[in-house]
């Protein structure tokens, strides 16, 4: 979808939909929001809806960073300690490697 051809109000609704959608445990929507609307929010010359688009993009970026931090921490802990957790580790795993603890 080419943002060039959309009128500004539709850009705003699109940005808002992606921002609200990301709250349903969908951080990738926030990632898409940030990447896609970055040029619109910060680089294009000002227009009326740009301020709101800018806030949405900023909040999406904050949410994204939070998710990245939480997921990275959990993944690191799990990969490191799964073997030591014994039964709990096995019940949390979908695929258990064969031959190594």
């Amino acid at each position: 979808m080419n943002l060039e051809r959309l009128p500004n109000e539709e850009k705003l609704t699109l940005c808002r939909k992606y921002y609200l959608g990301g709250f349903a445990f969908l951080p990738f929507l926030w990632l898409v929001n940030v990447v896609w609307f970055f040029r619109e929010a910060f680089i294009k010359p000002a227009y009326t809806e740009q301020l709101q688009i800018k806030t949405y993009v900023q909040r999406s970026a904050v949410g994204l960073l939070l998710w990245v931090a939480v997921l990275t921490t959990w993944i690191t802990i799990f990969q490191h300690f799964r073997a030591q957790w014994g039964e709990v580790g096995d019940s949390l795993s979908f695929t258990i490697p064969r031959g190594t603890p």
Partner: protein
Amino acid sequence: MDLLSDKWIVNVVLCLLFVGNCNSVEKKIYINLNETFPCVRLLNATHQIGCQSSLSGDVGVLHLLESEENLDWVLRTGPNPPYMVILESTLFTRYRPCSLKNGSSRVAGVLAVQPTSNPPEGFSPHTSCPNENTGVYSETYGPSYAHCNVTMWNPLGTGISYEEFDFPIFSVKDDNDTEVIRRCYMEHNRAVNGSTPQYPLCAMQLMSHMAAVTDTATCMRRNAPTFSLAPDGVCDPLGDANIWASTKPLNSSTKGHKDGVSVVIAATKLDSRSFFFDVAPGADSAATGLVALLAAASALHNATAELNRTILYTFFNGETFDYIGSSRMVYDMAKNDFTVDLDNIHSILEVGQVALGPDSRLWLHSDPVSKRNSSVNVEPNVTQPLPPSSFQRFLLERPIPGVVIENHQTSFTNKYYQSMFDNAEYLKLNYPPNLTPEEQLELVTDSAKALTEVATTVARGLYLQAGGELAQMSRIQADSELVSKMLYTFLVRVNNSWFDQLVKSDWTGVLSELMLYEINTSERKVKTTEPALMVQCILANLTGSIANITEVYFCPFSSPNFLFLCCQIYSYLWVQGPVRPNSTERDSFCVRSLVRQSKALSPAFELSEYTSKNYSTWAESRWSAIKGRIFLVASHDLEMLTLGVGVGVLLMSLLLTYIVSSKADILFSSGREPTNATY
């Protein structure tokens, strides 16, 4: 079109002509090792033992360990780690793999070449105090005898069978394949006069990836994971079948205590092991005791009618791994799930290792702790504990009187206990090589004669224990030809004319050339393996009687595997019988006997107590492929260079394509002639 089809036909014909020489590239690079015996992973409640390789096999540069000094090359000075160490036959036994374990980042694996004759100094990979945690002696029962405080039963034991290695260890026989490996080493890998060997070097890859880890509880849990759609098991508990037979009919459908029945148990074990998988000849540790008991059963066959006590011949399976078979039978008896129970047992006579040399004697061992009311004639030395034996598991439940017959007074005289060298050569079953297999079968060796005397002693002892009269004892005599044939069958070659007569005809293909005893893995439903089935057939023939049935169809439940399910009292077996002279037909018949199987799976798996300290918790890991191959490897630098050149060519071609496409209109503009629309 004609030209094309002609070319095509010519190509096909050429390829077909050369199809014999159409070697695949793989065959030109790799030489596969044909017959290898790996060391596999076993797990128990607390540990994992055995060897593990990486998922796609471990690769290492070959190094032939000719003497102990060469080990430095592998561990420290060699320039091309990791190394695949080949242990020649003399070093394999003398050499403790512990130092190889310490340098395991530079050791990719070990290939041990089996010696052609047994090492004279003895070798035992088993522990020096076998089954010390599951015997009867513990802190609560004879604490001064626990953990071999008084007598170290297996002094030559190094315990390497119970250690854990993180590289694969394989064993090969010393034959043509091994010569190829040695030649490859001599041509490429040998360091001549201090110079380092140059690439390409001969390397070997050994693959024996084991799926199970940590301990039995973990692997049994992973056998059935919560999320998996089609779970692939990772391990199997060790289990097989015990074989038992009684001299008087006992109704199997009523379990538990039987009034008025007094039983003398004649026990022995029928399994063995070694460091490597599927190599377990077990000549002295298992075969002698089992043949002696079978011969005793045959000798007593005609005399048992007048005895007032019943003799129960039991052949326990899995005794090597913490008494799997006997603990299961005792558990069943205590739970009233067996034909008789512990109160019916009058006494126990166990036959242990009974190989007798020219100046060895038989010794009776008994338990110094239990109060005995036994009526055994000989009073053995009472300050020594029992050797590792199935009798100990019975003592854990009740103080039953009993003795264990062995050929050693204190420590084992068997120099090769639970190793691959405990074979026919150790028992001195020397058959002259110029005899045919038939003549070898008929030859009665000295060892067979000695074992016949043991069998006679056992039979007479059982006769007296079961209430026979002393005066009648001398007519019980074991048959030395039978003993010799059984020893030949179990230790030299299964495929012989005597054993062929005993098995059903569709069975002969299943048994392999040489007998191997090993407790085999069960997948929750126990499948009986060769030694147990063989003992069952032989025992049925020796203690049974010919039934008046002429058709195999009417010989009910005549397949040995049905003996789990069948019959209240009698079991039947269809026997091939001897070949009629001048024809290939056989006089087959149906034998009715009192032989039965019972499950030999540790109670820990029945109760799902995988961390049990009382019962055996041994399980064997599963694996996908076990193979080895040798090939030449190039140096790492050459590999990197080839990769670099390839990547460079790729980048160059991309660059060239980009340049050509951006200047395409200049390069390709000429030569365009106006077309004449003539068609």
